[in-house]
């Protein structure tokens, strides 16, 4: 039986990798993937707690997160493609039209 703490650690590590990727990378697609990574890190901890506490609520929440992530990926990629058509770049720093 794998102890709960291992799952938590795995989740934390994945989350941190996601945060790092989001902050450090400039490619918008990679940033997307990092966000997905963070969401899935949270999913892991939710499932782990669900099993540990013998409650199904956590797993239901995971379904919601997966649904939201799918929707977010769909919209985000659509925006990205629209953006790319106007500005042939996927570098996040170049998209600074709203700079104050």
């Amino acid at each position, binding site marked *: 039986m794998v102890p709960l703490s291992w799952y938590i650690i795995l989740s934390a590590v994945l989350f941190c990798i996601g945060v790092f990727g989001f*902050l450090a990378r400039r490619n918008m697609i990679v940033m997307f993937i990092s966000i997905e990574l963070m969401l899935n890190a949270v999913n892991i901890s939710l499932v782990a707690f669900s099993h540990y506490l013998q409650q199904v609520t956590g797993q239901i929440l995971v379904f919601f997160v997966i649904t939201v992530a799918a929707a977010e990926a769909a919209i985000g990629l659509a925006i990205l493609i629209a953006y790319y058509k106007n500005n042939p770049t996927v570098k*996040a720093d170049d*998209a*600074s039209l*709203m*700079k*104050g």
Partner: protein
Amino acid sequence: MIKYTLIPLLPLIAFVINILFGRNYIRDKAHWVAIPAIVGSLLLAISAFFDVAGGNVININVYDWIVSGDFNVSAGLMIDQLTAIMLLVVTICGTLIFIYSVGYMHGDEGYYRFFAYLCLFIFSMLVLVMGNNFLVMYFGWEAVGLCSYFLIGFWFNKKSAGDAGKKAFIVNRFGDFGFGLGVILIFLTFGTLDFVGVFGQAGSFAGQTINFLGWEVDLVTLICLLLFCGAVGKSAQLPLHVWLPDAMEGPTPVSALIHAATMVTAGVFMVARCNPLFIESPIAMNTVAIVGGVTAIFAATIALVQNDIKRVIAYSTVSQLGYMFLALGVGAFSAGVFHLYTHAFFKALLFLASGSVIHALHNEQDMRNMGGLKKYMPITYAVFIIGTLSITGIFPFAGFFSKDEILWRAFLAGDMGKFLWLLGTIAALLTSFYSWRLIFMTFHGDFRGTSEQEHHLHESPKVITVPLMILAVGAVAAGWVGIPPLFMEHGDKIGEFLAPVLGHPSGHGTHAQEWFVVGISSLVAVLGGIVAYVMYVKKTDIAGKIASAFKPVHALLYNKYYVDELYDTTLIQPVMKASDKVILGFIDKTIIEGIVNGIPNVIGVFSRKLRTIQTGVFGSYGLAMTVGALCIIGYLFFQR
């Protein structure tokens, strides 16, 4: 009795119709709306006159106007004997002047507007005289002032007309301020504004004092003087007379109706109406008498040397109003109202006749460019002579009886009365002189205008001359209702008629004294005419010689005692400077604009700083989010 509410209502309806539909639909048919309305009011006024002739008083409460705690004011109308006389004066003069205006204002682009304002004026004036409490009276009082402003500035494209309108309005404000305070003080004192309630209690408040700006002053005296302030402004007495001569910028029918026959007599009416209050205060009565007497002579001297035909008559109006106040001040209220009534006829006549002259000369008002009009305008000449005989007080014209009654009552009123009588008699001499001077300069001698004007000289059309002839009948016969007992037994009908409201004047004199007063006043009336005849017909060079011999005096009179200049330097300029420097320069530009511009400026500065946070760099947003989230987690973690 409710039908009498129609007296003011008909002109109001005519005003509403004309002002709403005049410009697009009625246009030059505006008199078809206005004249039926005023004729309707006239007929109702005659009916009302016979209703109150028996001695009863009509009181109509139209509706409760203001009900607030102890403060109850109804919009109520009252017709007593005094009101009935005023109603007749207003509606008769109004009707004739409306008809005259059809001819005089023909073709003016503001024709409908003119009749609309005239109707509004008649409405306001009727409300003023019919109100049964001070607030309704005050409403009418302010409304006639407003109409006066509209009509003086009727030709608003002319700057002088606009200025004259403003001047009339602003000068009246000084007086009306006093009147307003008087009304407030009446409410504080008597707890009501109804005439009946106030006058009923007047006696019980006599002698009470009130602390006013640190002085103990007699309460009733203070009320009376404040009310009299309003009368001084509205009736153009010293020192607020300056607006009336300038008001001649308005069309001539307006001068005749508002600035001779009706509105300017509102002050006289008001003092007469408040006679139960004034009687309780000898100081106020003396003030009224002295202001009246001094104004009578002051304005008459100015009229001696003026060259504008309407200005001469305007100063004559100021002078005659002074007579009326003189009468009120010596306690002869019915004599004052009697003179008001006769004056309305002969002064409206003189104004309308001068309008006829001005019309014939195409807006020429300077008498130096007139002369010899007698043969071109026989009807105007004839009515002008009648008006002049009446104003100078020649037996048996209307002015004779009323003026003589005033002088006689003044003569009886003690030592100060004798002095006032002397003032009045001198003013009568001057009146006679300037009135005849006007006739001789206008109608006698040779025509002094341009040949083009001479070519167009013509008698005015019937629509103008017929009202003149009717008024001339009034100027002859209006005084016969007040023939003194000296000439006719059971005379002085008007005094008897007004006695329920105004009481009987005190003082008795012998017949010999009365003949003396009559004789002197007739003598000066004739004398003034003879002097004018010699100076302006026989030896026309005398006038110029006298003017150059007494140059400073002539200049003083010609420039109206420099009163306008005095007000300009002492009041108007300082106020203008103060408003320019303090109000505009400091309060408006510094404080108000400082606040108004300051707030957006501060916000702008902040926003410019604040917007640099929005860098547009994804990384920094993400970092901020992460750090923020960490901070929240850290806080929650370490909080426990």
